[in-house]
């Protein structure tokens, strides 16, 4: 990788999540030139490289012109091309602050876990929390429910929007919720009402993880594919919920921004928190 200053300055961020791998390529003006999303699968290193190549391809660039590549996410240590790793907590914070430069509470709903991250008005992280080892409120919960309802994941959003009378699901646990879903199917409740109930239950689990201070930003792959969640969250909290333009890419975007910032501050280029 060419680590010297490059005329065009090209910055990649690769976010290897437990479920999906995301890659973005930015120019030095922080403009998104290309991106890609793939299933992480079993070969994190291979997927990361394929995903990055696809993002580069869409940007019309080649890996040779990369100025830096920063990796984040669960499989961040598996990204061979990256010399720098940052946690997804740091990267989501960086990505969200780029789009909304203000004090905020970020809620990241991922495939396997959730995070609540609090930033002050200069983007410094004050506090964060991750969900306990439980699928409640994560993408895995949605997947399980889709399976029970025999639905494709991508059909859930428009179904939920059609609901007139939402079903209440009270359980905290994914398995118990699945039983409740089955009970509602048995009672002949409409599928759209059950799906909305599933969304509602999921949001409640996430929103109750912490206090919601300042602006509330919803990010992560689950929101990207289920945008109705953000609308429901607005109703639930009674306040506006911000969503960055490409919520699934926020982590990768933040990672690329770290590379860009390190490049513009050469003295901090060694400030690598990842011990790769």
């Amino acid at each position, binding site marked *: 990788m060419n680590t010297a200053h490059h005329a065009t300055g090209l910055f990649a961020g690769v976010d290897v999540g437990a479920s999906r791998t995301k890659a973005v390529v930015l120019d030095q003006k922080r403009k998104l030139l290309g991106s890609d999303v793939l299933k992480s699968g079993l070969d994190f290193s291979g997927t990361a490289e394929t995903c990055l190549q696809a993002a580069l391809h869409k940007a019309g660039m080649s890996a040779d012109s990369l100025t830096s590549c920063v990796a984040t996410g*669960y499989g961040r240590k598996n990204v061979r091309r990256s010399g720098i790793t940052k946690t997804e907590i740091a990267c989501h914070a960086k990505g969200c602050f780029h789009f909304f430069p203000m004090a905020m509470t970020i809620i990241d709903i991922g495939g396997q876990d959730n995070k609540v991250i609090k930033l002050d008005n200069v983007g410094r992280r004050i506090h*964060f929390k991750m969900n306990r*080892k439980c699928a409640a409120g994560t993408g895995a919960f949605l997947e399980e429910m889709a399976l029970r309802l025999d639905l494709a994941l991508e059909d859930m959003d428009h179904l939920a929007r059609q609901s007139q009378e939402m079903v209440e699901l009270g359980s905290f646990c994914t398995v118990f919720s699945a039983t409740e879903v089955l009970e509602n199917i048995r009672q002949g409740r409409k599928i759209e009402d059950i799906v909305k109930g599933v969304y509602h239950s999921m949001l409640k689990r996430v929103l109750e993880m912490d206090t919601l201070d300042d602006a509330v930003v919803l990010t992560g792959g689950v929101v990207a594919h289920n945008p109705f969640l953000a609308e429901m969250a607005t109703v639930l909290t009674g306040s506006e919920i911000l969503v960055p333009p490409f919520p699934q890419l926020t982590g990768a975007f933040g990672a690329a921004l770290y590379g860009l910032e390190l490049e513009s501050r050469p003295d901090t280029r060694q400030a690598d928190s990842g011990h790769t």
Partner: protein
Amino acid sequence: MKTPAEHRAPAFQAGKTLKKIMADHFLELDAAAKSRERKIAWCSSVGPVELLRGMGFLVYFPENHAAMLGATRMATELIPTANALGFSPEICSYLTSDIGSYLRQKTPLSKAYGINALPKPDVLVFNTNQCRDVQDWFAWYAREFQVPLLGIFSHRDLGKIKDYHLQDIAKQIQDLVPDLERIAGRPFDLERFQEAVRLSKTTSALWRACLETAAERPSPWSFFDHSIHMGPAVVARGTQVAVEYYEQLLAELRERVRTRTAAVPDEQHRLYWDGMPIWGKLRALSELFASLKTCVTASTYCNSWIYEQLDPEVPFKSMARAYTELFIVRNEQFKEQYIREHVRAYHCDGILFHDSKTCPNNSNARYGLPQRLQSVSGIATLAINGDLNDLRCYSEEQTKTQIEAFIEQLEE
């Protein structure tokens, strides 16, 4: 990339002595259990050990054995055996793993010392100052071995400690004497008891001095070392062996301070650890923190193990005080103040709360304490979920990410 070994400071010379003390402790108990020449008492870790020593008992600590089950990662497999008996997976995993170990006849003592059975007790003695689980745990063994069970029932959640608290506890300790005399088959020996109290006090003073070396920058040792080297303060408290051990360790630590030998080379951050160790992950966590140039310089678990209130002149009353003034017995305000003072004294940049699934008594992140500390003193806090012994309650990857993110946060 640095290998884990490169992140580590050289091993402590005292480590050899430590190994010998632990071996002698178990071998002596094993020999006594076989020969029946000396009586054996099982005691909870903050139970009235000085009295037991004063009465000539050899003392065995089930919690120490349970911690070994955790450290050797045998616990997780043994816990379900106790669960099947009706001991919930939600209660103390020291209890469940230890009873599981007994029932399955699997103990880390076999591999370490060639000992295949626990030393059968003549009596079991607990103090509920730490929790109620110890009495249920000991009660199970009392039924199993058909031996007497004695206990001290402590006041808990104490703010200011009143004289009536101390009088009550002192009386309860004193009331153990007739039963213990009968079991020991010998009369109470005040002088011997006072000697044990004196040695315990000296051990505590030395242990404190050892811990205080971690206030230096760089710190010569970390919480992960403290957790290991605390062994003699538990199993040999009230004996000359413990005193000599901590004299040796203290000399070594002072030498490390003098030569600026750091536990974590290039120490950049310092943390306070609240809650139990995650025994099966001590090494992994120690390496993770070292790779992040972070030294955990103090902890509630190790730093509150100090009983300097002991006074051989007033042994019963001072024992009552020492075992009542303990952190775990105190109310939230006391705990908040205690942690704040220790964070300051040990120059910590942040506090990590280990919320241990099966030990609410040592988990202080459940009533808003981290939030209060963060808002009052501006110190960054992080709560991780795990357990002392049940590794099914611990997500290594998630915890690693949280810890790395926390250090990133301190760096930004």
